[in-house]
């Protein structure tokens, strides 16, 4: 009995020190055995699901992996008639829109987080926090609807024309304004990743010890100087982690992007007015037509690639955020 008590007293866990005591205890108490079995069973089911997702995707995309190998990444066409498949335009679309979103969401999100933690009057903070959380909770189909029915037509008729008139000399704003395209998709993604960037940056900034802020304030620094010389350098890695986590969200976002990106490959150029497609929009658009064989397998390999890319970004983000005592990625509800 002594070992049971000590194992309780020395930590939060019910896991016992040695296998012997564990068995002795469990055989004495059938309820515990049942409960423990139930818990372990659900853990194994969850594990099995995770492994099955990866395993099934690898197995089912094996035909294309074997047929195309690495050229799947560089091949232009997604052409079931000639059995030629590749995702180069999808990769381009995925990374171009996500990079665009990150470019604008990082300053906006970090700026908002700085305002909320440092400058915002206490009375306003609660409601602003709530509104940012609410923005995170907006389902992506709602943003997709707004993007498709309101934002893209506006871009076509005013927004892109205005950009072309004033910044038309830039390579990004060449060609005919379509409304639907990379610019629309990137803008929607900016809105979608803004809340998670804000909330994680806020948590990262909150971990900087108050002594450090007060130390600098006591030396006569302004609030901005505290942010500039203490908070941002200290939280830099965490903010980078937040950005990469947000990047992962942007890379995998499906429905809103599928609605506004146009889903047509355009000749490669730097213009944001072009339509395009992403890995996830390829899946959403093509799975319905996919006939068994190479076509189906190509759609699944697009999924596998998306899974791999988001895994890499998430692991990287978690490594960067680990130092800030943040073990999980629950920034919003999306």
């Amino acid at each position, binding site marked *: 009995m002594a070992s049971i008590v000590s194992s309780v007293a020395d930590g939060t866990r019910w896991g016992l020190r040695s296998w012997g005591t564990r068995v002795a205890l469990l055989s004495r108490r059938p*309820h515990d055995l049942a409960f423990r079995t139930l818990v*372990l069973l659900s853990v194994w089911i969850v594990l099995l699901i995770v492994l099955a*997702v990866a395993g099934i*995707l690898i197995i089912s995309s094996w035909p294309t992996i074997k047929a195309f190998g690495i050229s799947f990444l560089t091949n232009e066409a997604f052409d079931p008639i000639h059995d030629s498949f590749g995702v180069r335009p999808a990769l381009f679309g995925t990374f171009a829109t996500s990079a665009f979103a990150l470019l604008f969401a990082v300053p906006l999100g970090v700026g908002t987080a700085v305002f909320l933690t440092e400058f915002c009057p206490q009375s306003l903070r609660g409601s*602003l926090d709530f509104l940012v959380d609410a923005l995170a909770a907006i389902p992506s189909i709602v943003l997709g*609807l*707004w993007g498709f029915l309101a934002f893209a037509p506006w871009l076509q008729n005013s927004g892109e024309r205005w950009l072309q008139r004033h910044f038309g000399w830039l390579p990004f704003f060449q060609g005919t304004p379509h409304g639907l395209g990379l610019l629309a998709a990137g803008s929607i993604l900016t*809105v979608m990743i803004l809340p998670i960037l804000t909330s994680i940056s806020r948590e990262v900034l909150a971990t900087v010890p108050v002594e450090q802020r007060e130390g600098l304030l006591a030396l006569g620094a302004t609030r901005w*100087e505290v942010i500039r010389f203490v908070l941002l350098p200290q939280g830099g890695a965490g903010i980078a982690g937040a950005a990469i986590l947000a990047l992962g969200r942007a890379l995998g976002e499906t429905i809103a992007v599928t609605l506004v990106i146009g889903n047509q490959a355009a000749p490669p150029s730097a213009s944001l007015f072009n339509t395009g497609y992403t890995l996830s929009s390829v899946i959403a658009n093509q799975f319905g037509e996919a006939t068994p064989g190479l076509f189906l397998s190509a759609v699944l390999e697009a999924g596998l690639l998306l899974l791999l890319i988001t895994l890499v970004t998430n692991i990287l983000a978690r490594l960067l955020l680990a130092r800030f005592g943040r073990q*999980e990625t629950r920034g919003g509800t999306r």
Partner: protein
Amino acid sequence: MRRNGPDSFYPRPSVFLLVRRAGNLFAVVVTGLFALLAVSFLVYLILYVAHQGVSFLNLDFFTKTPAPIGGKGGGVVSSLVGSLLVVGLASLIGIPLGLLTGVYLAEFGRGGFAKSVRFLVDTLTGVPSIIFGLFIWIVVVVPAHSFSGVAGALALSIIMIPTVTRTTEEVLRLVPNELRDASTALGASPSRTILRVVLPSARSGIVTGIFLAIARVAGETAPLLMTAFGTPFFNTNLARPIDMLPLRVFTYTLSPYETQIHQAYAGSFVLMLLVILASLAIRWATGGFRRRR
């Protein structure tokens, strides 16, 4: 404020100090504008969707099935019922799994195995939802030769698991060890302690996690395209394709008919209202509850 008269303790501010203070003011204004931008977009979006859709939120919208293509009127009762059924079934599968896994991580798990479970559950959080749709599509829909509500529920339940697991683990860790010790001292077994002492004392946090998970999947669309699929007909048979609110909004968004587009706005408004109410409920339920940093 500081006085800068001849008898003032403070020296007259130098130009350098004034420049620094101006820089501070500039930072306040810029970051404040950023925050204002984010918040005003949300307000604009809610108002815009409400403006376009609210006049279509009548009794018919909630009680009638979709009108024949191009027809006026009709409603989305089939989608509401379908959403309720599928999300309900997903919760029945996903919440117990997530909860028990969370209990494992907080109460039992030690060493490498627990670490890898935590890692894999975290990994699940970052995986795009369409991947789970694709997975269920191959595993369930293709062999069964039919889209089905069950497939939709399975896909959604996988999405729910990590949210429930991680919130449960987090809040169980906040429960003071004294409670466990006291319960053990009274002769309660570990399972009894967990079920009757630890879980009840973390109830509000666990409920928050469950709410978060339900709110998250209630608005999901992408994985449902390839599982529940949607249907214009009223259907409560979960073995058949079933309509859901996000799917109906998606279909109507691409519709050429004015009525259906407005109904898409109305449906979006309902979805937004639901998730915002859920966030409010979570805030209210957690009250003084604080997450450990």
